[in-house]
């Protein structure tokens, strides 16, 4: 609707000069039009400079005041970010498992217990340290993510058809049955987290991984503890390494330099480079001429894992990869000599989509196959010759490999080992070598006992205070051995020592789940106080004068009054004034006082690390400072409860969900619950819109409400189910439940988005006559072009995945599409930021010479019409959101792109609903945006679990891992919905806002505070529940991932609020103020 701008206020110079060289800028047009109008006005204002000069000064004064207030507001959110970081830091430090790393090493000459007399010549590496050496050489061949069921034969039936991964690698099973003395195959259970780095640590040290290490997967850190490779090196064995470069990160300097080959492990798009590289080097080294160059070989294949990540297990690429591995193993066995032990294993499994990291059955169940031509393996029962059909039968732990390998190679067992020797490897050909079994288990158990003693001593814990201490079992086992050398006695001793080991392992698992409760509490207290400060901040900055009188007459009179007062030296009452300044001051003063008192407190409390102490002190004293300031300001608390239905709705949505996260069911079904809330809101606003008096407003209100609900419902069809949701959920995000590629029909989505989404945005711009200025160019052309490029990108990507063009070279498609993605990013971030920075408001200005006497009583002779005047702020700010939107859409898979587009549309209808129902000052708007962010997080193919992270998004615009871009891209992919929502928060205030609106900053800060409050409350709640339920069975499957997701989202939203929303609002207000003058 064309809007009659209020008559230009007073005097001409309230507008700045046009940008030099751009005479057509809106500012210039506005200035010219104004000058024209002023010239036509007869009863004009006096132009002697006395009046207009205060106006200019008033404008400058207002601009400066805005800048100052903005800095304080930004400071408040910056401080809040700091509080969130410290709170989460302290909680995490106490919550994540910690384990003391002991320095001790096992020595060949110092067995942990007197060795059996029946062994001769032990104690030197030539004959074997603690057990007679069985093999001189070993090949450890790791097929990354080799799940146990990949190796088990599968008989397809009508209702249970064979998957792509079935029967493709039959060699292991065949040999175990055909040559039981040469080979055995067993399920090989990993300790979570199931990421390669953590697994390699466990597989070489024999100890349990700690949770905090998982973050270092991207970098890799050297292992300092005693481990198998260290023992090999000390025994003078030459180790050669081929494949995954995680090994070189963990064991720098261990490998023979000239013959080892390490390959980049994180390029999951590449199925073949690593494997081909390993194959190229492994076979020459196995040959007669070169097999004396090494003693131990570590070969790590990555193709199966990458095929899983990229396509999921049920894909022809997986069949191909497994068949290739089958061939490789046959060739390796053919080239093997009698003195070499071959160990083939998976370091972890993969879930139904081919990802891993968590602790679901599919992720922890790997396969282990050992082979030698010597014929030394046996089974204690004849039925054990057939390998287990399921991974639940006769599984061995992955740490069991450590003592097994060490003893077979005649090495001392690493000091930290908690595993036990694998029965099949020591049972003898006939499976009755009970004496040998008892001896190896006893030696291992003694090592564990020695380690336990050292650990408890280092930790300062009395071992006997530990519940269920297995000491009694040790004595029992020793007593059993004291009998005479009968077969039965050895068998019993073997059983008891095994039991001792198992008990010990259990104790260690519990012990290393020993939480630092005070630190966790400190974290929770800091987070809780942060939430309180945030609520106070949001509550204190509510508008007192919500009744907005919109009369140009009044505005003009008011402005005139302001100018008069200002000329007299009385600045106008400060509507922009927020409480940020006093709060930030409170924080600073509090922190300073805290730091000043620091040394005393530190001495008094006995200290800790300086960093921890400093952080705790600064945040706690800062929080006290803020709360004190608030108290002083108000002395008495007002009604802390919401006063309207909408306020209550916001509280109910936030709090009920937060409480629900204490239950695993509500955490699992979070996506359905957010949909339920979103629909509830839409239905409530539809009802509320029916109360609107004007028929047109009523219709629009109901229409937008229904659109809002329908879009959310439509988006809910994009699903990526987590394991716990089965069987009540069917994934639609990818082509099938066992895949991580898009179905061909899904490729249409990005093209539809490119055609439709800009038009939808246009329709919302045109409804307020704002499709002017830069908007048509940027939305209609640039944005659309970017979307088309992104659509082509995903088509090329699918072409690559599906190998539609087998004739093209391997990297042709990749080298085609990567530059496209880079162009889109350059356009969105580079050109887009410049466009947002310099664009004039999306309005157009016309001057009519015919007076429109009806609207103005004093009958001006010219009317200045500004098309889109009423939505100047919102439509200009949205240009920034579009840039971000383009980036987010670029990194989402086709289905996710569709979901994000629906979300964008929902944001628009939400803005209209809020405007029509006068809800722009209510907390419901920002909270609903947060709900939309949470909802579409699930709709873009994510879940609160490690396995759902779409790591491959790091490679969309890149060929290799590059810091810091790769983690940033993964974050943009994972939290795209929340990022978009946070960037859209200022629109709640700015949408349908005319230029000289007063108190905009205050409203934006308040909206952002409500928005962040949603995430802060959820973050606090999930933190509390994770801490409270720390012994819960589902901690690592459900509560811990949810806590980590919520914590990350909170920090991401904080950053987006600081860097995008607030900076965008500052820039936007500045530009609008420059053009139209300040309110």
């Amino acid at each position, binding site marked *: *609707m064309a*809007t*009659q701008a209020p008559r230009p206020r007073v005097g001409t110079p309230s507008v700045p000069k046009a940008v030099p060289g751009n005479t057509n800028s809106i500012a210039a047009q506005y200035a010219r039009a104004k000058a024209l109008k002023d010239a036509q006005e007869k009863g004009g204002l006096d132009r002697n400079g006395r009046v207009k000069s205060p106006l200019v000064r008033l404008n400058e004064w207002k601009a400066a005041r805005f800048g100052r207030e903005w800095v304080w507001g930004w400071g408040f959110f910056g401080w809040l970010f700091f509080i969130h970081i410290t709170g989460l830091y302290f909680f995490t430090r106490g919550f994540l498992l910690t384990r003391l790393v002991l320095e001790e090493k096992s020595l060949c000459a110092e067995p942990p217990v007197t060795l059996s007399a029946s062994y001769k010549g032990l104690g030197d590496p030539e004959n074997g340290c603690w057990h007679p050496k069985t093999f001189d050489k070993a090949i450890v061949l790791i097929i990354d993510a080799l799940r146990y069921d990949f190796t088990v034969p599968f008989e397809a039936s009508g209702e249970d058809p064979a998957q792509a991964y079935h029967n493709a690698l039959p060699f292991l099973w065949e040999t175990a049955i055909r040559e039981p003395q040469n080979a055995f195959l067993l399920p090989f259970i990993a300790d979570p987290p199931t990421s390669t780095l953590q697994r390699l640590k466990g597989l070489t040290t024999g100890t349990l991984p700690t949770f905090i290490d998982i973050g270092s997967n991207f970098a890799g850190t050297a292992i300092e503890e005693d481990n198998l490779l260290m023992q090999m090196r000390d025994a003078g064995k030459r180790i050669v390494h081929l494949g995954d470069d995680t090994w070189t990160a963990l064991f720098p300097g261990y490998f023979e330099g000239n013959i080892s080959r390490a390959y980049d492990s994180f390029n999951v798009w590449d199925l073949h480079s690593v494997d081909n590289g390993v194959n190229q080097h492994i076979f020459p080294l196995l040959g007669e001429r070169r097999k004396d160059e090494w003693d131990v070989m570590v070969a790590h294949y990555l193709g199966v894992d990458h095929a899983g990540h990229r396509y999921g297990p049920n894909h022809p690429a997986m069949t191909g990869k497994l068949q290739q591995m089958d061939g490789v193993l046959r060739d390796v066995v053919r080239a093997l000599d009698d003195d070499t032990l071959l160990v083939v294993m998976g370091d972890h499994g993969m879930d139904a989509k081919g990802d891993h990291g968590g602790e679901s059955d599919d992720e922890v169940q790997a396969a282990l196959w050992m082979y030698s031509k010597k014929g030394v393996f046996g089974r204690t029962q004849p039925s054990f010759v057939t390998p287990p059909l399921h991974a639940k039968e006769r599984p061995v732990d992955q740490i069991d490999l450590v003592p097994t390998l060490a003893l077979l190679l005649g090495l001392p067992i690493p000091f930290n080992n908690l595993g036990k020797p694998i029965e099949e490897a020591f049972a003898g050909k006939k499976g009755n070598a009970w004496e040998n079994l008892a001896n190896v288990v006893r030696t291992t158990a003694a090592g564990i006992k020695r380690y336990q003693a050292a650990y408890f001593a280092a930790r300062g814990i009395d071992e006997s205070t530990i519940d269920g201490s297995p000491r009694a079992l040790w004595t029992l086992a020793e007593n059993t051995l004291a009998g005479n050398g009968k077969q039965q006695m050895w068998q019993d001793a073997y059983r008891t020592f095994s039991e001792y080991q198992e008990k010990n392992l259990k104790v260690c698992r519990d012990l290393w789940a020993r939480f630092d409760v005070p630190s966790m509490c400190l974290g929770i207290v800091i987070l809780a106080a942060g939430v309180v400060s945030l609520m106070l901040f949001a509550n204190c900055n509510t508008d007192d004068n919500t009744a*907005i*009188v*919109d009369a140009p007459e009044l505005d003009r009179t008011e402005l005139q009054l302001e100018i008069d007062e200002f000329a007299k030296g009385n600045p106008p009452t400060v509507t922009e004034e927020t409480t940020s300044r006093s709060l930030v001051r409170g924080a600073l003063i509090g922190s300073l006082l805290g730091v000043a008192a620091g040394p005393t407190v530190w001495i008094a409390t006995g200290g800790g690390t300086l960093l921890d102490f400093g952080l705790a002190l600064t945040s706690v004293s800062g929080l006290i400072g803020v709360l004190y300031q608030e108290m002083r300001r108000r002395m008495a608390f007002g009604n802390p409860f919401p006063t*309207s*239905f*909408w306020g209550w709705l916001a509280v109910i949505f936030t709090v009920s969900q937060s409480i629900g996260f204490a*239950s*695993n*069911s*509500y955490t*699992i*079904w979070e996506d*359905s*619950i957010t*949909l*339920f809330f979103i*629909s*509830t809101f839409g*239905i*409530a606003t539809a*009802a*509320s*819109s*029916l*109360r*609107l*008096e*004007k028929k*047109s*407003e009523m219709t629009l209100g109901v229409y937008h409400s229904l659109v809002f*609900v*329908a879009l959310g*419902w439509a988006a*809910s069809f994009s699903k990526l189910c987590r394991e716990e949701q089965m069987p009540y959920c069917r994934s639609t995000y990818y082509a099938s439940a066992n895949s991580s590629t898009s179905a061909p029909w899904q490729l249409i989505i990005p093209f539809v988005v490119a055609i439709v989404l800009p038009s939808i945005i246009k329709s919302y711009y045109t409804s*307020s006559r704002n499709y002017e200025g830069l908007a048509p160019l940027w939305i209609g052309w640039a944005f659309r072009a970017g979307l088309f490029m992104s659509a082509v990108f995903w088509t090329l990507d699918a072409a690559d995945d599906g190998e539609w063009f087998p004739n093209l070279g391997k990297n042709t498609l990749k080298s085609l599409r990567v530059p496209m993605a880079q162009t889109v990013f350059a356009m969105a971030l580079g050109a887009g930021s410049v466009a947002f920075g310099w664009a004039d408001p999306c309005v157009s200005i016309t001057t009519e010479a015919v007076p429109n006497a009806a609207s103005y009583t004093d009958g001006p002779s010219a009317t200045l019409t500004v098309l889109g*005047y*009423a*939505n100047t702020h919102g439509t200009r700010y949205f240009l920034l959101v579009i840039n971000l939107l383009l980036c987010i859409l670029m990194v989402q898979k086709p289905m996710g792109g569709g979901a994000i587009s629906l979300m964008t549309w929902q944001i628009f209808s939400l803005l209209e609903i809020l*405007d*029509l*129902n*006068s809800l722009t000052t209510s907390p419901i708007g920002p909270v609903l945006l947060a709900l939309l962010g949470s909802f579409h997080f699930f709709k873009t193919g994510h879940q609160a679990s490690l396995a759902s992270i779409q790591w491959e998004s790091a490679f969309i615009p890149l060929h290799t891992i590059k810091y810091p871009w790769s983690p940033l891209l993964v974050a943009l992919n994972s939290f795209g919905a929340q990022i978009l929502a946070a960037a859209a928060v200022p629109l709640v205030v700015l949408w*349908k806002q*005319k230029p000289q609106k007063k108190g905009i900053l205050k409203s934006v800060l308040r909206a952002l505070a409500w928005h962040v409050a949603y995430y802060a409350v959820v973050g606090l709640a999930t933190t509390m529940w994770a801490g409270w339920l720390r012994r819960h069975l589902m901690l690592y499957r459900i509560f811990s991932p949810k806590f980590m997701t919520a914590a990350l989202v909170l920090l991401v939203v904080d950053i987006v609020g600081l860097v995008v929303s607030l900076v965008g609002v500052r820039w936007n207000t500045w530009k609008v103020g420059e053009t139209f003058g300040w309110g």
Partner: protein
Amino acid sequence: MSTLSPSSQATPTKPSLPIDLLPIDLARLVSQAHPALLLAAYYIRFPVLVADPVSTLLQTLLPVAAIQVVYAVICLPAVGSNAKPALVKKAKLNASKKGAEPSQVTGKAFTAIFSLLLSLLTTLPLFALQILFGAPVTSHLPHTALSSAHISLLALFPLFYVHGTSASKWREIVSIYSPIDEVFGGSLGALLGAWLGAVPIPLDWDRAWQAWPITVVTGAYIGYGVGKMVGGWLLRGKRVEFE
């Protein structure tokens, strides 16, 4: 449109009044017994409902409709009859004479049947609403439809019987601005109850009654009973304010 002052909440020009029960003792008695009867019947049928939701919901549809019709005819002023106070007085006179005019009886019967038809019709929007709130789309469609029918009988049938199809009145009802009385309170209670009924569904308690749509229907029945009592007594005459 944007320069217009942000619209204020409308206050209807003619404020509507809460519904009064028919001024006879029987009406008051039946009105009290009605929710108790409904809930007791529901409680008795509950095990069967859990065992076989679809056929139970289908079979109970007619008895519930009958209970609702009897309640409406005995207790509530049919649409049009309460337009003039005189008519009410007349009805009172008639009732005291224990002989209603035949034309009025047929009128009531006609209103009841017409309202039943309308409730059947509005099952469809309720069905759509449940789907929008996340009810399964690819399965359980009869379940959803039947639960909508029950909610419609509880929440909407009395409203149709009392208010007919007046557009302005229905705008007031749908925007939840109608003054609360026994009828409107019951409707709000039933809808709110159905909304809250979704809460236990995701819990992993593995109980048979967690199956769709048992909790929602249960919530609607309990909510109807509570809402009817509270609406007719505690909150009578109040309006729901959003602001």
